[in-house]
């Protein structure tokens, strides 16, 4: 059974916008971080799919995906470290707590 490329793309788009939606609506910082992962994974799917379906002769998309996964891990680690700092200072990890500086 051959699944057409558009199916994958639709999936990745859904993931991407779910991520965006989640990022905007979730109040919890960790949940936001998870939404971010959704976005990045949508991108990963894109790369893999394009590579597989369009340019089967090369590996650029795959490599890119691997790098993204790696960097995302570092990013998450950093983010979590900062979220811990947030928690230390305000005892919560709600995004609404981070509104001291405005206007």
């Amino acid at each position, binding site marked *: 059974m051959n699944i057409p490329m558009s199916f994958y793309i639709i999936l990745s788009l859904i993931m991407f916008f779910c991520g965006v939606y989640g990022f*905007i609506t979730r109040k919890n910082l960790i949940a936001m971080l998870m939404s971010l992962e959704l976005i990045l994974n949508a991108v990963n799917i894109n790369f893999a799919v394009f590579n597989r379906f369009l340019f089967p002769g090369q590996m650029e998309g795959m490599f890119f995906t691997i790098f993204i996964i790696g960097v995302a891990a570092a990013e998450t680690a950093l983010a979590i470290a900062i979220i811990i700092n947030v928690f230390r200072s305000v005892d919560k990890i709600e*995004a609404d707590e981070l509104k001291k500086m405005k206007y």
Partner: protein
Amino acid sequence: MDTNLLIALIILLIPAFNFLLLGLCGVKMSHKTAGVIGTTGLGIVTILSYVSAFNYFLGYGKVDGVYKALSGSFQWLSFSDTLHIDLGLYLDPISVMMLVVISTVSFMVHLYSNGYMHGERGFQRYYAFLSLFTFSMLGLVVATNIFQMYIFWELVGVSSYLLIGFYYTKASAVLAAKKAFIVTRFADLGMLLGILVLSFYTDTFDFDTLNSTGFQESLKSVGATFMGASVFTWATALIFIGGAGKSAMLPLHIWLPDAMEGPTPVSALIHAATMVVAGVFLVARLFPFYFNMTPEVLTGIAYIGALTSLYAAVVACAQTDIKRVLAFSTISQIAYMMVALGVSKLGGHDGLGYMASMFHLFTHAFFKACLFLCAGAVIHTIGSNEMDKMGSLRKYMPITHITFLIACLAIAGIPPFSGFFSKDEILVAAFEEDKVLFFCQWFVAGLTAFYMFRLYYGIFWGENKNYGEHTPHEAPLNMTLPLIILAALTCFTGFLPFSELVTSDGKAFEIHTEWIVAIPSVLVGVIGIAVATLMYKNKSTVPDKITSSIKGFYVAAKNRFYFDEVYMFVTKKIIFKAICGPIAWFDRHIIDGFMDFQAWWSNALSFRIRGFQSGSMQTYIGVFITSILVISAIIIAYVLI
């Protein structure tokens, strides 16, 4: 350089030098020195003027039986190749005559002021200003072109301003000075515009060129009109407005009565004898142009003159301030001259009006100066201008009395005093041209006699007044001497053969007495005097009865027919309140407000959009992703469409 021009130049430079000397170093001088410097200077000027006149009229001036002009100038300010202001000297019969008039009266006034202004604060300043005025006035009459005239025109205006406002701590004097300057300045605007229009179509400022017949012929081809009238009509009418302002023609006369706030000798010099006739002189100077190019303007001048003289005479009858009576009489007499010019034609006996006008200018200068100086002597000793405070001064001030009487007779047109001759010529000229004007002027002559003798009796006759501590006394010699000289001049100048000297085309012509005019004119003068004698010589109730019977008219005349009020209304209420005030408001609130508004709305906008910077990370992301999507939509739409 021609010797005669050199003399004229020296005549001009002496007062100019005196002005600088007294103006810059006056503070360091004693009063006496300043007075001596000023008076001596003017004395020399007078002598030179006489020499100049003598040379001109009896010597080089007359070429082939015609008086020619002598001129010399240098280019001072060049506008373009053809238009330039030259500064120069232009000697012709009228300017030489004016030199004589100005220097004589000015000398008298200088002399007189030594006594009159004795001990006044700012004595040196006074003399400096007098010198400045004399210089400017002399410069005005010898101008070679209309722009030079305009320059000196402005300068006499300023000297007049400074001298009227000489008592600068007195509010009324300051106001009067300001009024005089601004009203004449307004008129000068007309003159300036006239000059501009004229120069645009003629491409010259030069009197010689403008007055030459050939040039005028070449101008006839200019058919330009503006609002139905030829541009030259506009030009000359506008220039006349300038003259009307200086010569206090209706309705620009309002400054002159107020100008009496200045020291009396100043009134005698500026506001009686010299500066106020500048308008007449201006028209006379351009007379050939007026006559050949725009005769309709001359007619207008005649009627304005008639109206003014009538108006001023009527008003003069109702005034109680002696200087104001004299001021209105001056207005009336100058209007006479204007009428004469207005009815005149060019050349030979047709130019009788021109000659008469100049003649009257000449005689009037002396007797009016005499009147003013007498009034000054009276005021000096009484300390007031009001007729109520005076009476029976003939006992205390015999010389003043006699000279005043002579001048009064002259102005009333009683032979053999000078006024008779000149006024008679004017009436003849009017009679020949326009009967309405003649009757008007004839009536005014009667009125003149009446109000002058009303004044005369009011001052020197009537009952004794209580003069307070000090009794009136005759003025010192340096004041009476000028009176005597001027009275003498009043007696004799009438006999000068003016028609041989000053005429519209430079050619002499014969005049003969027109009895049909002379007799009624003397008669009306006598009637005027008689009525005045009856009413005012001794205290009587007649004047009060008359005034009460025409109360409304009398009050109006006393208030000068409310001209000042109308002007006040226009300036204060309309221009200041309704134009300047709103402009200032408009500028501050609308124009500037608009600029402030820019700042305001930037600030307001800045406040409004601060919601975007809410501090919430998720808003930021929302804006972020929305922007991406919107931009993508736009850019893709752009490509697809």
